[in-house]
């Protein structure tokens, strides 16, 4: 039976799925008082663009990466001997760097000889580069010289070289990189404060983090301020502190998302409170040139500490203080978020939100290369607006659709069908309010897709007449154009009249790409009509005909359930984690009820088939009360242990079947069932 379950799981995992396993975090940081392009990305891009231009690459590729051979070839063609020697030496230097990397992360740890060669090469490259610091490529060679010094640990030499020579060079990306190495040398020689200023000026967050990793507490930041109230590192340190406080608050509220975020430090309420007091003191002292930043930091920390009223007062005060345009925008964002999260429902709020959303969209269009305002919209939508409109399903759906909500817990596909119909009507009717105008302008709905969705929702409720009414308006071409190859393959090949307990319709999903599968008849509509007809005539039947009809209906319900082979009737996709959702009937349990009627039959063959079907474990996956299966494994003290549930419906069905057929059943379909075989072995000894 283990094999049976494993195979089931593996097959389920090969079905068309959506990427639901991982979502990016939506707890974007809202404290962002300055913009800056990270140093490493900035210089890397400029360097690579320079190389691209040098080799004459005119392709549209936005990103070029350095290949020494290409540059050497171009340099030789141009007769540029200096560039040839520079690149050859740069290659040597990069090889030395790779030896360092091997030391850390590779199985082949460098030998003594390799390290000696590395040191030798570094010295040789250094001497070469030093000799060319007055050449046409002086900046590049000076950078190479400083890089070698850095690797050799000759930091003082780099300080002297920068201060006496390189700092006089013209402004280039190479000079920026030299300045960065100079800052590193200052740090290595104990001149931390100066190094921090330079790293902050350059937006070198990695270096700032390395420097201040253990100096990010309230205590450390307040001491830093006392030494230099206008230190350029302060905005960075304050931002780091506030964002870590947000991370801690989000984690408490279950919304934390440390995936992909580095260097998180946890801030407790005590430390946050100390920082709030400190921010207030900084504003009052008047030594800072950006009081707005400190005041809004205080407001945001208060909000995160659940002091909502204080947060409102302080963020309002912050908006009146001095600071850069970005800081003012940031204060605007925080005012929006703080007030919206406390607002009562009503027209005034709706109008306010409409204006603010227009403002946010405007900011998104204004800024390039900075996704802050997109992140604000995301967090505002998921954490404020979706909860705010939770009791108004139509507005909720509109907000979610217009603002592309994800990770908010709202899913149009599971909204009840009545609200979905109202939502469709809402979208297609004229807007009356500011907010409706904004939302409707930003909603792109496909009416046919909506008809399919509503029709399918009625199918999930087994309301076949309404399902037929909606699905009738959906042309077959819609499915052929809007469903993936795997969906079309499964839906064309799998049949709903095959008893799933007797035969699983295993398919090789790779076949979906072998042929162009298309619907040529409306599979969903056909199913609805067939089941509707079968249900409607139940009252007219009796005896064996009725029992057989029940069995046949059970087959169709079981196939249409999420665990059936024809899951595609009620869903567009399936994953192995899926189960019966809200606003849908448990089709498997509906099948069970029909099978119970069929199992009462005096027709021995039908009775046995129905009892056998009642032992089908996929029918019980969503049972809410009592045990689901007749047997399961549990980890007890580190060992896998079998637990038997003699009161489970599956056990009772197998027991009835055993009593009916004896220990050696004649029917092939019973004998070949490995799960029933396990049951027989158990039951023989434990009657």
């Amino acid at each position, binding site marked *: 039976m283990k094999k049976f379950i494993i195979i089931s799981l593996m097959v389920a995992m090969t079905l068309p799925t959506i990427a639901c396993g991982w979502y990016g975090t939506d707890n974007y940081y809202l404290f962002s008082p300055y913009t800056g392009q990270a140093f490493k990305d900035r210089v890397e891009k400029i360097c690579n663009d320079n190389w691209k231009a040098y080799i004459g690459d005119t392709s549209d590729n936005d990103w070029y990466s350095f290949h020494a051979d290409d540059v050497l070839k171009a340099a030789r063609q141009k007769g540029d001997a200096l560039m040839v020697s520079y690149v050859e030496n740069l290659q040597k230097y990069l090889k030395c760097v790779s030896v360092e990397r091997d030391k*850390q992360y590779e199985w082949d740890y460098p030998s*003594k000889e390799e390290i000696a060669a590395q040191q030798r090469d570094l010295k040789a490259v250094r001497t070469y580069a030093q000799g060319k610091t007055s050449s046409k490529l002086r900046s590049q060679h000076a950078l190479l010289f400083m890089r070698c010094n850095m690797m050799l640990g000759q930091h003082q030499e780099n300080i002297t070289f920068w201060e006496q020579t390189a700092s006089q060079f013209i402004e280039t990306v190479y000079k920026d990189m030299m300045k960065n190495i100079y800052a590193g040398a200052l740090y290595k020689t104990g001149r931390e404060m100066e190094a921090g200023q330079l790293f902050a000026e350059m937006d070198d967050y990695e270096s700032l983090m390395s420097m201040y990793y253990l100096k990010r507490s309230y205590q450390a930041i307040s001491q830093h301020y006392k030494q230099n109230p206008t230190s350029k590192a302060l905005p960075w340190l304050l931002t780091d502190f506030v964002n870590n406080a947000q991370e801690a608050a989000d984690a408490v509220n279950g919304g934390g998302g440390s995936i992909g975020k580095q260097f998180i430090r946890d801030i407790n309420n005590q430390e946050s409170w100390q920082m709030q007091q400190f921010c207030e003191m900084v504003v009052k002292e008047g030594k800072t040139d950006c009081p707005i930043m400190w005041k809004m930091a205080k407001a945001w920390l208060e909000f995160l500490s659940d002091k909502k009223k204080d947060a409102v007062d302080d963020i309002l005060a912050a908006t009146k203080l001095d600071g850069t345009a970005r800081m003012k925008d940031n204060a605007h964002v925080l005012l929006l978020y703080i007030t919206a999260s406390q607002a009562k429902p009503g027209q005034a709020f709706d109008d306010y939100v409409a204006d603010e959303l227009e403002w946010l969209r405007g900011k998104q269009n204004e800024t390039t290369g900075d996704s802050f305002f997109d992140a604000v919209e995301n967090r505002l939508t998921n954490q404020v607006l979706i909860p705010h409109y939770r009791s108004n399903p139509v507005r909720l759906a509109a907000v979610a659709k217009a603002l592309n909500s994800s990770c908010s817990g709202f899913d149009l596909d599971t909204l009840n069908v009545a609200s979905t119909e109202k939502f469709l009507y809402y979208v297609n009717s004229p807007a009356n309010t500011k907010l409706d105008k904004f939302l409707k302008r930003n909603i792109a709905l496909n009416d046919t897709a909506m008809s399919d969705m509503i029709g399918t929702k009625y199918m999930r409720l087994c309301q076949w007449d309404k399902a037929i009414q909606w699905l009738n308006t959906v042309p077959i071409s819609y499915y052929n154009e809007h469903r993936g190859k795997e969906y079309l393959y499964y839906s064309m090949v799998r049949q709903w009249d095959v008893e799933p307990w007797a035969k699983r319709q295993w398919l090789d999903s790779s076949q979906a790409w072998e042929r162009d599968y298309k619907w040529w008849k409306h599979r969903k509509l056909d199913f609805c009509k067939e089941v509707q007809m079968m249900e409607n005539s139940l009252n007219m039947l009796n005896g064996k005909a009725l029992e057989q009809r029940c069995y046949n209906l059970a087959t169709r319900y079981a196939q249409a359930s999420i665990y059936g082979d024809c899951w595609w009737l009620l869903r567009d996709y399936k994953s192995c984690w899926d189960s019966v959702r809200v606003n849908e009937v448990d089709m498997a349990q509906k099948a069970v009820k029909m099978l119970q009627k069929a199992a009462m039959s005096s027709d021995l063959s039908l009775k046995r088939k129905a009892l056998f079907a009642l032992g089908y474990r996929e029918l019980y996956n969503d049972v809410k009360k009592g045990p689901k299966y007749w047997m399961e494994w549990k980890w007890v003290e580190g060992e896998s242990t079998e637990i038997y549930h003699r009161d489970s419906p599956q056990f009772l069905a197998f027991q009835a079947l055993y009593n009916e057929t004896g220990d050696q059943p004649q029917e092939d379909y019973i004998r070949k069932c490995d799960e029933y075989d396990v049951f027989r072995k158990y039951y023989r000894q434990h009657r």
Partner: protein
Amino acid sequence: MTLLLLAMIACEKQSSRKTLESGQAVYYWRTDLRLDSAEKSFLAQYHINKVYCRYFDVVMNDDGEPKPNATISFSDTLPDSIEIIPTVYITEDCMHETHEGLAEKIVKRIQQMNETNDIKNVREIQIDCDYTSKSRKRYYQFLEEVRKFWGETLSTTIRLHQLAMEVPPVDYGALMIYNTGDPRKWEERNPILDFRDVEPYLRRLDSYPLPLAAAYPVFQWTYTIQGVRVDRTVEAEVILQVKKAMESERGDLSNLIITYHLDKENIERYKPETYEEIYHH
């Protein structure tokens, strides 16, 4: 008469178990072997003769392959009188499946690191892994392979809960007498060390057939609990109470004593008398 016989068998069993040479040791768990004056004095003051030095970690990379990580640099050397024992920490998930050649790669890397950095007279290596019943079998097979490629003394760390398992194929184990509690219940019990968490394992000590060194905690534990940072250290009295109880169950646990881990802050955390008692044989 029966009781006497049992006692004799018990004595015989105990005496047949190898015992470790007496010594004082520390773990060194940073990424650069660079000792400040306080750390150097500590080594001398407590006659430390072994340093279990973490050379590198082995972690699963994104391609599902074990790779070295956080390799140590050697800015300093240890005094000649101190034996260095290269120690490798392997994350438990590396043992969820068999990785061909892993043992050989680790041994070769250690040997190369020794050669490159002029570290001589290395006679032993230690592997640290928080193996569970799921990974135990693979881990033991892996240790067998390490032993084959290494050829000299091999030890492994043993967590208290691992005392209930079959013994690993090594020369001795370093019993980690720390991280005994459930971090989620940090308010009730100290997760680093609490006598109540150690007590259930005491009865297993004497019958555990492998020679054991005892490793005691002197570090500070920092953990994030629902967004709140929690720091914990162990009271000196607790360490000494546990040591006493452990040694009364199994006397040879006082032969080789290790503290985790050498660091200026940890040195300053306890009084010299405490360290003297911890290292007392």
